[in-house]
């Protein structure tokens, strides 16, 4: 087990280097740079700025300067938000994204699984059709339609929740962003759970248990839950990363200041430092959660060996 974790962590190093090199290269070959503005700068001014950010060095030198700093824990300066280092920007936005992600997960996993289980137990009944159409609708409605509609209803019409802002994560500011994030994932978790549960309920040992006259609830918790968890767990790792970082739309609509918006605007602004920093953080998270998920498998299903 330990050896396995060690091996995975060792693979992570070249993987991260590879990702760093590819994204660094992608950004530098792309047309337009951080200092191409609506009004072009005079040559002299531009040369001074490029010298300051090492942009006048050869590509590989720039890359090694970056990696050297990175290894010392320094993500370098932001090319656009020049009053901050990338580390500071990440330190500001990471708690926002993580809070949103964790909360929406805490809501969507139990809710989604409950709905999925309900649908599976009542397979092909009206309840099943209703829940599944509902969840399919939830999957299908884009967040950029859902978010403004929620704001219109709950902030402007009813005045229950603020329409945006973060304010250090005060609960009332969290409601709408978390709901907007959670609805999509509740829906997809419900669908996956239903599928897995039906599969499990068809297994011979469940039929045996039923034949023995055990109650549905007992069967559900003692026999069916565990195996049905596997596909859900498989979703969790990458989905968690996506929620934490991919909350672009939430950041745009609710002005929460999370990492998602930093990444997208960073890419649009050619903020090389910021984009590299966030890419490497997300890549590390992805690697970490993939590992966690694989370890979780062995806990849920002891037959799985790694």
């Amino acid at each position, binding site marked *: 087990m330990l050896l396995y974790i060690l091996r995975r962590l060792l693979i992570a190093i*070249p993987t991260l280097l*590879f990702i760093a090199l590819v994204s660094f290269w992608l950004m530098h070959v792309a047309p337009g740079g951080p200092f191409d503005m609506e009004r072009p700068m005079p040559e002299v001014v531009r040369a001074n700025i490029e010298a300051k950010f090492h942009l006048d060095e050869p590509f590989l030198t720039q890359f090694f300067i970056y990696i050297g700093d990175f290894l010392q824990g320094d993500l370098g300066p932001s090319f656009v938000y020049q009053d901050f280092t990338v580390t500071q920007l990440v330190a500001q936005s990471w708690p926002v994204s993580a809070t949103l992600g964790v909360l929406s997960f805490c809501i969507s996993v139990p809710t989604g699984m409950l709905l999925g289980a309900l649908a599976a137990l009542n397979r092909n009944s009206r309840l099943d059709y209703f829940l599944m159409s509902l969840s399919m609708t939830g999957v299908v409605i*884009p967040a950029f*339609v859902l978010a403004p509609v929620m704001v219109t209803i709950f902030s402007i019409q009813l005045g229950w929740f603020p329409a945006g802002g973060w304010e250090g994560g005060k609960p009332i500011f969290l409601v709408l962003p978390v709901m907007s994030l959670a609805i999509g994932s509740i829906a997809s978790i419900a669908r996956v759970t239903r599928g897995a549960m039906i599969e499990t309920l068809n297994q011979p040992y469940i039929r045996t248990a039923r034949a023995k006259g055990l109650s549905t609830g007992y069967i559900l918790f003692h026999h069916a839950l565990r195996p049905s968890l596997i596909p859900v767990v498989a979703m969790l790792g990458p*989905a968690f*990363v996506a929620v934490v970082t991919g909350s672009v739309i939430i950041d745009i609509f609710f002005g929460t200041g999370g990492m998602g918006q930093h990444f*997208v605007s960073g890419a649009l602004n050619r903020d090389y430092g910021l984009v590299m920093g966030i*890419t490497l953080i997300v890549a590390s998270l992805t*690697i970490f959660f993939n590992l966690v998920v694989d370890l979780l498998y062995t806990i849920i299903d002891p037959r799985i060996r790694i």
Partner: protein
Amino acid sequence: MLVTNKINTQQLADQLADNVEAVAGRSLWQDAWARFRKNRAAMISVCVLLFIIVCIVIGPSIASFSHDEIDWNVVADPYELGKPSLSSGHYFGTDDLGQDLFARTMKGGRLSIMVGFMGALVAVVIGTLWGSISGYVGGVVDSTMMRIIEVLDSVPFMFMVILFVTLFGNNIYLIFIVIGMVSWLGIARVVRGVTFSIKKREFIEAAHSIGVSKITIVRRHVLPNVLGIVMVYSSLMVPGFIMFESFLSFLGLGVQPPDTSWGILIAEGAKTIDVAIWLLMFPSVFLVATLFCFNFIGDGLRDALDPKDR
């Protein structure tokens, strides 16, 4: 959205891998088709989807306006004069530039559905090739190819796609090729698994011993079995791609006007919910119907190819 869908389908396909194997050699396709036909939701979905496809193919030619034509009569007050009406020829109304929404919805549908299909096609081709080579050849090749997948799995692809599209422009072909290229990992794994287990079965060994060539074995025995999984997998991938395209469009990274897609139309329509609901409604109806259809068809295919229900 893309990520969840990927995992979701992988799980389904994993289950299928066992099943298909078990029925190999029987008249799998006839059985499956018979069962699929009995699935009402799936059959209705096929019809609706065909109807939508017919619409978007012939729609632009029956529209009174072309998708990028500005109706100067409407421009002055698009939200009053551009309401949906049969008499003005704008069946679905117009957008704020006086462009006909009917023509744009049809035109946008072509693009959205094409993105879905092309993305899936790219993913399936790469995934199937990679997986079957890895599984069939085995040994060092197999373990190297699987290591590569493991490394690629750690790449935050959602980010890479955004990065790629931002940096290299909004070429629509590029977009779906890129999306497809980053979505083949799951399919490659599954195909490898199936190929791997089929390879070991007696009938393959028998075929091998009587001198049937490798290519024929792959064509006759391996591919048909893999095809079922691939079909289920890709039918569930298509809606994911369509949604991802709409997400990119919202960020301004999708196709550029005057070209359009359902995603763009919906993103634009969402801004005028209160003054011009038709701009959101018509494209949404088409998009939602299409996504529902693909999901039902995917579920139907899975059930049809799943012998446990028998």
